[in-house]
């Protein structure tokens, strides 16, 4: 397959930045609505069909105004301009209500489509990308599986060639907002006779494809941001294949780079101070009349310090990135910090609030919040790669420590699974 040859970073040519800024400002004022307050992250339940439709209409307006896909190639419906132009536009747009598809904003515009642009065929990209820019296609990831979480290269969903089509069977899970998406980028095993990294291929699968069932998963904190999908003989045309056959792992690594934030407008705003001391925990301590308890005050100061250390660590790692130091090991520091401190901080809600805060009158507004915060806290140590995975990445990629012996990189993947089963049986 010839790749699209797409430069996701557009050319540096184009209108002078000041002219571009003035034009963008005028267009925004004429076409978009000013915000009342800062943008808020909504829960999945906030994205009702009406809300999604309204945001799709906003996206279409951006597209028709020439402000969608600013750095994406012109031949695929983008504007072909530089990152600097994009940064200018988003600075000007900060005061306006912009399209918001929840988690699908990131997966569609900053992860999946930028990944496709590096490897999919020009024919596919000409056909598909304009629909994305026009708000008609939102893309999620069909990536993790029940049997492969941190070990993503161990995917077992199979793709079997059938003439001009592929037939997919298997199961995916942890697909954020898949029930609201139009299509998913799906990683499948196209060859079981080679080592695990060498037999993977990416496809685009419409969410309404016959044989595909999507089910939201109720989480520990009662909301359902994630879905699971069942693939029963789902037919995908070869023209919707997103990389060379069996070249899926290289594209996966490209996707990781975008997941870590490459290509997004950078936030270089100066770091703010610590701000008010852990307002959620202070409110809890006040409610339970423990604000003057010296032991509670120690915990409050610890939480406040950890919150601020997380901020300055994030700024330091971003700064290292700008100095060209952002290898995956370094990027994992922020993730591991969150993964190790969030569960501890969540525990504080139970320790400070005590039994009184872990029970509530159902009529009381936000009465459930401390208990929800407590159970929610575990997520950061798991989602996007467990703490243990981050520690391996830091140890091997940042600190240069020797790798563990591997049991799955040098033999056919079908043998890997067989040998592992025998290993367990011998125990």
């Amino acid at each position, binding site marked *: 397959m010839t790749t699209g040859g797409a430069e996701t970073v557009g050319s540096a040519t184009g209108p002078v930045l000041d002219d571009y800024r003035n034009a963008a400002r005028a267009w925004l004022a004429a076409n978009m609505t000013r915000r009342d307050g800062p943008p808020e992250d909504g829960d999945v339940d906030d994205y009702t069909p009406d809300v999604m439709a309204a945001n799709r209409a906003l996206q279409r307006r951006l597209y028709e105004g020439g402000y969608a896909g600013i750095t994406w190639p012109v031949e695929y419906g983008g504007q072909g301009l530089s990152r600097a132009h994009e940064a200018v536009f988003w600075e000007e747009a900060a005061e306006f209500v912009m399209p918001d598809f929840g988690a699908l904003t990131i997966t569609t515009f900053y992860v999946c489509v930028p990944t496709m642009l590096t490897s999919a065929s020009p024919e596919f990209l000409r056909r598909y990308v304009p629909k994305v820019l026009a708000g008609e296609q939102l893309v999620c990831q069909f990536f993790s599986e029940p049997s492969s979480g941190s070990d993503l290269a161990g995917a077992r969903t199979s793709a079997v060639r059938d003439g001009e089509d592929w037939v997919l069977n298997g199961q995916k899970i942890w697909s954020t907002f898949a029930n609201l998406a139009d299509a998913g980028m799906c990683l499948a095993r196209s060859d079981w006779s080679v080592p695990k990294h060498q037999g993977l291929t990416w496809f685009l699968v419409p969410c309404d494809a016959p044989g595909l069932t999507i089910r939201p998963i109720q989480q520990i904190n009662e909301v359902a941001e994630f879905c699971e999908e069942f693939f029963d003989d789902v037919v995908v045309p070869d023209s919707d294949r997103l990389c060379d056959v069996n070249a899926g792992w290289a594209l996966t690594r490209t996707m990781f780079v975008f997941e870590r934030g490459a290509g997004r407008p950078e936030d270089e705003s100066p770091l703010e101070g610590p701000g008010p001391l852990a307002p959620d925990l202070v409110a809890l301590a006040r409610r339970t009349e423990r604000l003057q308890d010296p032991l509670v*005050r120690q915990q409050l100061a610890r939480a406040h310090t950890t919150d*601020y250390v997380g901020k300055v660590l994030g700024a330091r790692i971003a700064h290292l990135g700008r100095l060209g130091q952002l290898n995956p090991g370094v990027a994992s520091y922020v993730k591991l910090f969150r993964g190790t401190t969030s569960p501890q901080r969540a525990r504080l809600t139970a320790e400070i609030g005590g039994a009184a805060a872990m029970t509530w009158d159902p009529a009381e507004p936000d009465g459930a919040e401390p208990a929800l915060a407590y159970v929610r806290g575990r997520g950061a140590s798991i989602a996007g790669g467990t703490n243990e995975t981050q520690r391996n990445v*830091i*140890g091997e990629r940042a600190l*240069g420590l020797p790798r563990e012996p591997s049991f799955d990189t040098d033999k056919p993947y079908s043998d890997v699974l067989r040998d592992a089963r025998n290993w367990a049986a011998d125990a």
Partner: protein
Amino acid sequence: MRWLPEVRNLELDLSADQELLRETAARFIADACPLSTVRQMIGAESDLPADYFKTAGPLGWFSMLVPEELGGGSVSGAGLRDVAIVAEERGRVLQPGPFAGMNIAAATLAAAGSTAHRTDIVPALCDGRAIATWVPGDGAQGTGDRDRIVATPRAGGVSLSGRVRPVQGGAQADWLLVSAGGAPRSGGGQSQFVIHTATPGVTVTPLAGLDVTQRYAAISFADVVVLDTAAVGALGGAEADIERQLQLACVLTTVETVGAMDALFDITRSYAIDRIAFGRPIGSFQAVKHQLADMSLALEASKAIAAAAVGAVQERTEDAGQIVSMAKSWVADTGVDLAQGCAQVFAGIGFTWEHDLHLYLRRITMNGLLFGQSDWHRERICRLSLV
């Protein structure tokens, strides 16, 4: 094997001049007081090799918080950022002497001292010809009445009584910058004085201690008569100066600890690659690798919060006191975690006197206990946040 990130300094954007300052400090340390010399000085009366401060003075070590017209000046115009560069290099090699005390005394005397203080003492400190340290006897830092000096008014001055223990470099110092509380019946606030250690009534008792790379002393004052001319700033009005000194002391101590953590982690990481057990480098075992990853995270986070504290104190931001207490308590606690974790990776060899690990463990632990322990700083964070 490369260790990333390659930029290991606490400050990520050093100017060419600052980089030169760092290199010059590192070269001086390697020549004048490498770890082998630090070791030789253990048990000696002073921890300072001959002419150590006299050679460091002309390198700018003690003059960067002093204005140019008094013989000071910094390389970047942001004096504390430059002092912090030196403090970090000092920490890597566990350098001796009251570095924080020297800089605090020079800065406060330059800003609030009398003309005589500024013309006689400040230049001597900048040159490293005289040694000064800070005696925080104002009863803050969680020590309460145990370490307090009280100033009682008398004709022509005050009389000082009380003691402070420990004082860094107390037995090596010529001058003491003494912070004292007012006598209850005079209702006075805090005052500061600069006193020569040879003043009658001042007793300096050298102490042995956990940190064998640094010297500490107990300093007591038995009705020491101090004339008004020794006062630094207004009598009873030193609160703001003392707060500033506390911030400087905490920041410099914290940055020094971060330098020590970085150096200790570096040798530990190398050891985990070189040491073979069960047929493998021990760093390939996840049980060891994961400990090193956690320590390395603690180190990067410590660098980030220490740099934030340097910036806040340099810029005198409104929340500087709070950020300093965050940095001090965070680095004190994670520093000890890191040093203990490194000891576990070295295992048996790290339990020997001959190995350098214990020197780092001692310095990092002691630095964390100075100028307010972590629990005191945490309560201060609550207070400063109006909780």
